[in-house]
C-alpha cells in the first residue's frame, strides 16, 4: 500500500472519529453549561458528573427505529441525513490544527470550507421536502432564506481579511498574523462574522429552522434515531467549523504561548480558542429569546450587509494606501 494512501485512510478515520468526539464534547458542554446557566447540576447520573451520558445517548439513538412517515419520499428522506453529514466532515480535512497538523494543505482551503458548509442547506431542503410535513417545510423555507442571506455578510467580512493577507490558504492567513491578531484591526468584521456564523449554523437566537415552540422541530421533525443524530452531528460539526474559521481568521489560529514541539502542540491553543468561541455560542443560546423571522431578515439586509460592505470598502482603501 502506498504511504500516501495509508496516510489518507488514517486521516479519514481520525476526522470522522473527531467529528463524533466533537459532537460528544459539545453535547456534554451544551448540557452542562446550560444547566449551570439555569442553576441546576445538569448531567450527573452516568459516570462522574455525567461524562458518559452522551455515549449512552448515542447508543440509544443507534438502537432506535428510523420511522419513515407515510406519504414521504422514502429515498430522499433517507438520503437527507447523509447528505447533511458528509459535507460537514470534509472541512476538517483542511483545518490547520497546528503548523504541521493539517491533513491536506490547499491554497484555496478557505473557499473549500465555505463551499462545503453551504452544501448543508441542500440537505435541509431535501429533508424538509421529503418529510411530507408542513412544519418541516416551514423550517426548510426559513433555513434556506436564512442561509442564503447570511452567507453574504459572512463572505464580505471574510473578504476584508483576504484583502489584507492576499491568500486563501488558512496557514497563510495564520502566518500573516505574526505580530497581532486580526481581531484587533478588524473588530467589526469579527462581530459580523460571528453573528452570521450563529445564523449559518442555525443557532439561537437565530434558530428559526428548528424553532421548536413554533415548528415543533422544523426540518427534522419527522426524523428519529440515527436520522436525527446525523443532523445533530452535522450541526455540531458545522459549529466547530465556523468557530475554527473565526479562530484562524481573527484569533491567530494555533498561535499562542510557544510550547515544546510547537509544530504539533499548537493544537492546544487552536482547540482552546475554538472551544472558547463555542462556549460563547452556547452562552448566547441559553440567554436570549428567538428573534422573529422578518426581524432576522431585516437585521441581515439592513444592518449586517451595509456594515460589512462599508467595512470591506474601508479595508480596501486602507490596504491600497498602506
Amino acid at each position, binding site marked *: 500500500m502506498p504511504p500516501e494512501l495509508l496516510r489518507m485512510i488514517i486521516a479519514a478515520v481520525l476526522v470522522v472519529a473527531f467529528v463524533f468526539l466533537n459532537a460528544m464534547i459539545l453535547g456534554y458542554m451544551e448540557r452542562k453549561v*446550560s444547566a449551570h*446557566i*439555569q*442553576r*441546576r447540576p445538569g448531567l450527573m447520573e452516568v459516570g462522574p458528573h455525567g461524562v458518559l451520558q452522551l455515549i449512552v445517548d448515542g447508543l440509544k439513538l443507534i438502537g432506535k427505529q428510523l420511522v419513515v412517515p407515510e406519504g414521504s419520499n422514502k429515498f430522499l428522506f433517507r438520503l437527507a441525513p447523509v447528505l447533511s453529514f458528509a459535507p460537514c466532515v470534509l472541512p476538517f480535512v483542511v483545518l490547520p490544527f497546528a503548523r504541521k497538523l493539517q491533513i491536506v494543505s490547499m491554497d484555496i482551503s478557505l473557499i473549500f470550507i465555505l463551499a462545503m458548509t453551504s452544501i448543508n442547506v441542500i440537505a435541509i431542503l431535501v429533508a424538509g421536502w421529503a418529510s411530507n410535513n*408542513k*412544519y418541516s417545510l*416551514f423550517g426548510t*423555507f426559513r433555513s434556506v432564506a436564512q442561509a442564503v442571506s447570511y452567507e453574504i455578510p459572512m463572505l464580505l467580512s471574510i473578504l476584508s481579511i483576504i484583502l489584507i493577507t492576499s491568500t486563501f490558504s488558512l496557514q497563510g492567513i495564520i502566518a500573516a498574523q505574526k505580530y497581532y491578531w486580526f481581531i484587533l484591526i478588524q473588530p467589526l468584521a469579527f462581530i459580523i462574522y460571528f453573528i452570521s456564523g450563529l445564523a449559518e449554523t442555525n443557532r*439561537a*437566537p437565530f*434558530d428559526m429552522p428548528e*424553532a*421548536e*415552540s*413554533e415548528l*415543533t422541530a422544523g426540518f427534522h421533525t419527522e426524523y428519529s434515531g440515527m436520522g436525527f443524530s446525523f443532523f445533530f452531528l452535522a450541526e455540531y460539526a458545522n459549529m466547530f467549523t465556523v468557530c475554527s474559521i473565526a479562530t484562524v481568521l481573527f484569533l491567530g489560529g494555533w498561535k499562542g504561548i510557544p510550547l515544546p514541539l510547537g509544530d504539533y502542540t499548537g493544537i492546544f491553543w487552536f482547540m482552546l480558542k475554538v472551544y472558547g468561541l463555542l462556549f460563547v455560542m452556547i452562552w448566547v443560546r*441559553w*440567554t*436570549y*429569546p*428567538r*428573534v*422573529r*423571522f*422578518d*426581524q432576522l431578515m431585516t437585521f441581515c439586509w439592513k444592518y449586517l450587509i451595509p456594515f460589512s460592505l462599508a467595512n470591506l470598502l474601508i479595508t480596501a482603501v486602507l490596504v491600497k494606501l498602506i
Partner: protein
Amino acid sequence: MENLAENRTAYTDLEPATDIPNENHYYLNMGPQHPSTHGVLRVLLEMDGEYVVDPQPVLGYGHRMQEKMAEHKNWMAFMPNTGRMDYAAALPYNHGYVALFERLCGIEVPARAEYIRVITSELNRIVSHHLWIGAMLLDMGAFTPILYTFDDREQVLDILEDVTGSRLTYCYFRVGGVCKDIDDKFVEKTRAFIKRQRERFDIYNKLVTGNIIFIKRTEGVGVISPDMARRYGVTGPVLRGSGIAYDVRKNEPYSVYPNFDFEIPVGRNGDSYDRYMVRLLEIEQSLRIIEQALDQLPEGSFLGKAPKKMKMPTGDCSFSVEAARGELTYYLVSGGGDIPYRLKIRVPSYSNLSVLPELCQGMLLSDLVAAMGSMDLVIPEIDR
C-alpha cells in the same frame, strides 16, 4: 341551530382540498399536541405563507364534563373538582366555590379563615404568574427564564404544600373556613419568600424585561384595544393590559380584600409587552397584600360553624372571584336538596381565547405563538 352545526363541521371534519377559499392558502394544524399550545388545544390555521389568515381554536380535547358532574353529586363532593380546572392557580377556584355556598346558605366565615384564604390565594396567584412568565418565554424560544421562575415557584409550592397538603390541585378551603390552620412556620416562611421574591425581580428584569429581543418580539405585537377587549369579554391581566382597570378584588370586593391597600396595574398599549408588565407588577401587588394580611392576621377559629350535611335553599346565586387569569364566576341554580340543579362556571381563559381569531389575523406564525403565550391560556380550564 343548523347553522351552528354546519359551522362546526366546517373546521373539525376538514377536507383540506375542497373548502379552502383561496387556492394559495393552506391549512396548518397547530395542536392538539404542539409544544406551545400548552395542553390539548388545537388551533386550525388558515395560512398564506408564513402569515396567519384565519386562526380557529378547536376545543374539546380535554373536556371532562365538570359542570355535568356537579349536577350529579353532593355539592361538597364536587369540591376537589374545582381544583382540577385551572391547575396553575387552583385556590381561587376553591375560593369561588365555597364562597358561593356561603352566600347561598348565609354562612358566617371567621375573620382568620378569610385572611388565610386571601394569603394562600395570593400565593397561588404568584405561582401562576411565575409559571406564565416561564412558559411565555419558552414560547419565544428562551429556555432559561422558566428555570429561574420555577426556582421561585418551588419556594411557594413548598409553603403551600405544608398547609394544604398538595402542590397543584388544591382542595383546601371549606364552607365556613379552611381545613387546616396556618402556623408560625408558615408565616415565617412566607415572609422569607416575600423578601426573596423582591430581590428576584432584579434578575427577571435583567434576563427578560430589558432584553432587546424580548422587547422587539412583544412591543406592538398582539394589540388588544380596550374596545375589542370589551366586545369579547376579555378579563384578568389581558384586560388590564389593554388599559381597563377592572379587577374583581377592587370592583366587586369579596372576602377581606377591602382591608388591604393595593393597586391595579394597567397597561397602555394592550400589546404582549404590557400584558407581561401587568403580570410582573401584579406579583409585587400580591406580595403587598400578603404582607399586610400577615401583619393583620387575627387570632381565632379557622373553621366556622357549618352543618355537616347541608341542604341548599332553592333559588340561584352567583359569586365572582379574581382568579389568576381573570374573573371567575360560579353560577348555581338550586332546586333544594344537596345536589345542584345546574352549576355554570364562567372561566376567564375561555373568553380570553375567544379574542384569538380576530387578534391574530394577518400575523406571522411566530407572533401568533407569542400572542397566544401572552394570554396565559390554561386549557383544562377552557375544556372543563
